[in-house]
């Protein structure tokens, strides 16, 4: 039986192998997705993001245990950073998810970011589709520990949960652009620590500034390690899903995501075409010489190289 039929049956080994193909640029990965794409779209995708050490993995572990009680099948994609020097990585998110490894209704895949800077990896979006086709009801994507601007998760998640902890900085941090703007639900984890209330208030104040919007993100407290605050978090996610579906935003988001997915693929294809073009390297070297000699500039160089490459 071939790998596509196995994936449709929910075979984990098939899913794992197809994800590896996608990650490594093996064309068989996209071939599978092309044929099976119509089977995707059933799973609800939850993004878990936040700074390193905020408790994303522990929270994910707790969240999945509760969701599993409802019988839903859950898949997790956990992304950790890749070394920019060696290309190696230590993917350690499974450490917090030990019990889940024995649960037949759970699939966990760790991914190295492999040079991709958006907080996930390039293969994360297609891997979500693979796990969707496999029959997952819920897919949780845990991003790398993020700083301030890694926000790609919103392009692929229906609900984004922003996890933070007390004491990361004053309230000016909360009004900066970027990561603080993307939460549909905020969780202040490790809420037994000093300053938790203050962090909640600062987040609430930031959200007040946003003015009238049809969805006001709730700010919750949790102590993930003790399993506290998880029920409330699940309720908040469900409420957000209900809001998305009733308001029509769900459909609009998914359409927007499809568009950005196509654009991403085009960008990638353009770069491959540029790199593969036989004369690119030669032209680049020539322009570098000219620019170094102050006879040319990079803007003109880029325009001329682009004009030279045929895009059929």
């Amino acid at each position, binding site marked *: 039986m071939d790998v596509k039929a196995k994936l449709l049956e929910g075979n984990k080994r098939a899913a794992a192998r197809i994800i590896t193909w996608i990650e490594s640029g093996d064309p068989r990965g996209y071939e599978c997705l092309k044929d099976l794409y119509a089977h995707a779209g059933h799973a609800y995708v939850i993004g878990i993001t936040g700074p390193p050490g905020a408790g994303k993995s522990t929270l994910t572990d707790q969240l999945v245990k509760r969701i599993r009680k409802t019988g839903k099948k859950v898949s997790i994609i956990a992304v950790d950073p890749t070394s920019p020097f060696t*290309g190696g*990585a230590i993917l350690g998110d499974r450490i917090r998810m030990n019990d889940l*490894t024995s649960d037949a209704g759970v699939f966990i895949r760790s991914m190295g970011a492999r040079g991709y800077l958006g907080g996930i990896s390039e293969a994360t979006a297609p891997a979500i589709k693979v796990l969707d086709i496999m029959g997952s009801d819920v897919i949780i994507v845990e991003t790398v520990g993020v700083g301030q601007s890694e926000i790609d998760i919103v392009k692929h998640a229906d609900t984004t949960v922003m996890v933070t902890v007390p004491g990361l900085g004053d309230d000016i941090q909360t009004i900066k652009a970027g990561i603080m703007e993307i939460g549909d639900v905020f969780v202040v984890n490790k809420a037994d620590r000093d300053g938790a209330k203050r962090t909640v208030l600062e987040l609430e104040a930031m959200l007040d500034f946003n003015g009238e919007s049809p969805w006001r993100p709730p700010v919750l407290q949790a102590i993930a390690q003790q399993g506290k605050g998880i029920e409330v978090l699940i309720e908040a996610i469900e409420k957000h899903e209900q809001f998305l579906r009733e308001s029509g935003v769900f459909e609009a988001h998914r359409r927007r995501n499809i568009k950005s997915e196509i654009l991403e693929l085009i960008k990638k294809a353009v770069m491959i075409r540029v790199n593969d073009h036989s004369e690119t390297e030669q032209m680049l070297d020539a322009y570098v010489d000219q620019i170094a000699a102050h006879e040319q500039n990079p803007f003109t160089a880029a325009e001329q190289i682009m004009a030279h490459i045929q895009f059929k």
Partner: protein
Amino acid sequence: MERPIRVLVAKPGLDGHDRGAKVIARALRDAGMEVIYTGLRQTPEQIANAAIQEDVDCVAMSILSGAHNTLLPKVVHLLKEEGADDILVIGGGVIPDEDIPGLKEEGIQAVFTPGTPTQVTVDFIKSHVTPRA
């Protein structure tokens, strides 16, 4: 695009000493591999499940509890049951010399005892993982 070798570093059994496993994990990372580190006290079933979901090329187990003759072969058998016997399985830790031939017969392809330079393990993995079609 070159595919990095993926290795599951696991601690089967009940001992809580993971210093060695962490040193190996770091060495493999520095050799450009993707290391999935699963932490302490893993059952053979958990290790086999994780190896399949992570689609690894190699399972490296560190064990200091003395239960190696039971636990390491169990992982090999479970992988075989799943049709994943192309995964390279190696072991390390405090394992008496006289147990090593038996473990190799059971499909643990190498056993690295204390004092082995990490580079030896790195080189072994690089030269013994099954190339993929």
